C-alpha cells in the first residue's frame, strides 16, 4: 500500500445491509433458476446447476471483496485473527464431535439417520462450516473486547 494513498472510509451499516439484501436477492434468483431448470436430464441440467452455484458464489465473493476494501486495517486484523484462530478452533471442535458421533456403530451414531450418502456429505460440509463460523464469531468478539 502506498503510504500516501488516501484511505477508504468505512461504509455505514445501511450500506452493508443493502449489500446483504442485494446478495440475498441474487441468491434467490439464481436458486429459483437452478430449481426450475437444474433438474433437466443429462449434461444440460448439470451445467445449469454448476453455472447457477458458480454465479451465486461469484456475486457473494465480489460483495466480500467490496466489503473488505471498505473496512480499515484493525477491522481486517480482527477478521483475519478470528478466522484463523476461531475458525480453526471451531472446525477442530466440529470435526471431533461429528467424527465421534458418526464412526460409532451403535444407536448414538449419526450414520444411521436415513440420509443418503450425498445428503450426508453436504450436511457434514455445512455442519463443519457452521462450527467454523461459530468459532469465528466468538473469536471476533474476543478480539474487539481485548482491544477496546
Amino acid at each position, binding site marked *: 500500500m502506498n503510504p500516501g494513498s488516501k484511505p477508504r472510509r468505512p461504509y455505514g451499516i445501511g450500506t452493508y445491509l443493502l449489500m446483504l439484501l442485494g446478495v440475498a436477492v441474487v441468491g434467490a434468483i439464481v436458486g429459483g433458476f437452478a430449481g426450475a431448470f437444474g433438474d433437466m436430464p443429462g449434461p444440460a441440467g448439470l451445467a445449469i446447476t454448476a453455472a447457477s452455484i458458480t454465479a451465486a458464489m461469484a456475486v457473494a465473493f465480489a460483495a466480500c471483496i467490496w466489503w473488505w476494501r471498505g473496512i480499515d486495517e484493525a477491522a481486517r486484523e480482527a477478521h483475519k485473527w478470528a478466522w484463523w484462530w476461531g475458525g480453526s478452533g471451531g472446525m477442530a471442535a466440529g470435526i471431533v464431535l461429528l467424527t465421534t458421533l458418526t464412526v460409532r456403530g451403535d444407536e448414538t451414531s449419526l450414520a444411521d439417520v436415513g440420509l443418503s450418502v450425498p445428503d450426508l456429505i453436504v450436511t457434514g460440509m455445512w455442519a463443519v462450516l457452521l462450527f467454523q463460523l461459530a468459532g469465528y464469531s466468538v473469536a471476533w468478539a474476543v478480539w474487539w473486547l481485548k482491544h*477496546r
Partner: protein
Amino acid sequence: MNNRLKVLRAERDWSQADLAERLGVSRQTVNALETGRYDPSLPLAFRIARVFGQPIESIFLDTE
C-alpha cells in the same frame, strides 16, 4: 509498543472520531491504537505522522 497518540490528540482538542476521520479509520481503531493494544501498519503509522506533523519515532516508542 507505547505511543503518544492520546496526548497529541488532546493537544489539538480532537475527539477520537475527529482523528479517525483524518486518518480514514474507524473510531474503534483509534481507541485500540491509543490504548496500545494494536500496533498500526507502516502505511497507517506514516499517515499518523503526517497528520500530527511529527516523525514516527517521536509518536511511537519502542519499549523493548
